[in-house]
């Protein structure tokens, strides 16, 4: 079995093998030479992160799914041009960011923007349904409360700057390590930590204004 070296909580992202080579790098190299299965392994590592980023960009599942696929396809087509001068994650993050911008621009031209504080019925039903499925004896009041909280949090995230939203997404939602985030954003770890601290404080102040903590 390949790549049986240690994996961290981030599904192996950024993890290094015993010989010091980043596992992503190995997968990227193999994929660049046409190894389609290496590419599949690579996108399996990042598809959730991409989807979550896309979701917070477009605000609903359907568009997020489309955007996710577009980003991953761009990765495949762009991979032969990746020179390896920058870290893969940094390069990939740029693809994600640019594709999200393009998507929003296209969307804006064809449809009015749908914001996350107005989730579609479809999306709004999901958390509630998931909670009910998880336990049939869940307090309905709690279900409603959680559903409301989800909506409030989505709206609060939308009020953050993109920089702040990104670090919270990566750390508090995705659970990425500081090193991984630093690699993706091209920042020092210390900068990531301080930015994250400010982002959390800002998010908390927005949520507090919404009586979220009461």
């Amino acid at each position, binding site marked *: 079995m*390949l790549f049986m070296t240690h994996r961290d909580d981030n599904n192996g992202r950024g993890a290094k093998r015993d010989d010091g080579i980043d596992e992503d790098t190995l997968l990227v190299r193999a994929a660049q030479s046409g190894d389609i299965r290496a590419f599949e392994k690579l996108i399996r590592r990042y598809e959730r992160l991409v989807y979550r980023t896309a979701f917070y960009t477009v605000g609903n*599942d359907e568009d997020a799914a489309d955007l996710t696929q577009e980003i991953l*396809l761009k990765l495949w087509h762009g991979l032969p041009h990746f020179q390896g001068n920058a870290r893969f994650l940094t390069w990939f993050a740029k693809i994600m960011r640019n594709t999200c911008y393009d998507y929003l621009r296209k969307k804006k031209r064809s449809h009015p923007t749908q914001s996350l504080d107005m989730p579609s019925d479809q999306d709004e039903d999901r*958390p509630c349904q998931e909670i009910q499925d998880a336990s049939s004896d869940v307090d309905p009041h709690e279900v409603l409360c959680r559903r409301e909280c*989800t909506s409030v949090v989505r709206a609060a995230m939308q009020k953050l700057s993109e920089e702040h939203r990104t670090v919270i997404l990566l750390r508090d939602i995705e659970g990425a390590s500081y090193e991984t985030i630093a690699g993706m954003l091209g920042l020092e770890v210390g900068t990531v930590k301080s930015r994250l601290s400010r982002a959390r404080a800002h998010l908390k102040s927005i949520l507090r204004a919404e009586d979220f903590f009461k």
Partner: protein
Amino acid sequence: MKVTQRQNGVSENSDVRLSDGIQLHPCDRAADWEPLLYDYAEGLADEETGAAVQRHLEECAYCRGAFADIRWMTLALRQSVPEPKTDLGARVMETIRAQDDINGRVFTEQIDVQTGRVLSSSSDKRGIRRLLNTIGYVAASLVLIIGLFYAVPLLRAGGGASSSGTQEILLDMQSGAEDTLRDGVVVGTAQNADDAVTLQVSGITEAGLAELLSQLTVTLDGYSITVMETDDGFRLTPLSALAQVTAMLVSENLQVTAVHAETASVSPALEDAFYIQIREPQ
């Protein structure tokens, strides 16, 4: 005393007034503890840090209140993004495989019968490269063989070229599809338990075998595999649990040969199937 209602967050480091009116003094090291509280709430703290946080929370009512807020907020954050309804990665891979699917027309256009080389002037060179690189299935190999079988006379007829520049193996391929399969294909079977596969070769010229050995490039998910000649064929190592390996020598100048590793008869779930990469001439 349970901290349930707080008017201020820990980040401001101000006094906290509880619902029962009792005022808490802020923690002197609240700013230091805060990121650790997040890590702990999100399950990202290591064992040592987690134990330290636990001890501190037992002693500090202010941070206990902050921790309750953080836990609630991070829980809501993680629930704020739904899971995708479909397997997006699988859909992407389907699209990629469909885009890069084998196209006999494109492939035959790349073959120069006089030299056996892949033509580099194709407008779809990248597609061809990817096409060749991603061949990994027996069916694909068969398509390749048959495509060549029909392509060679077609190209010859069109170009009016002689066969003087072609290699012996390529000439053999004109004698018929069955001959092509017999003469051009190398079939191997896993014969031992030490993660190696022996290729048993038959119906191929000595020169062709030497060419195969010198040009064969085998990778296993990015790992190079050594090809060694043995008394009874060629051994590829390391390779695990393969039931059968099929390799096809198309043309020495094509610098490749195709390839497949059968795992189905051992276990369809095995991930260690390998394929031989097909490379364009340098």
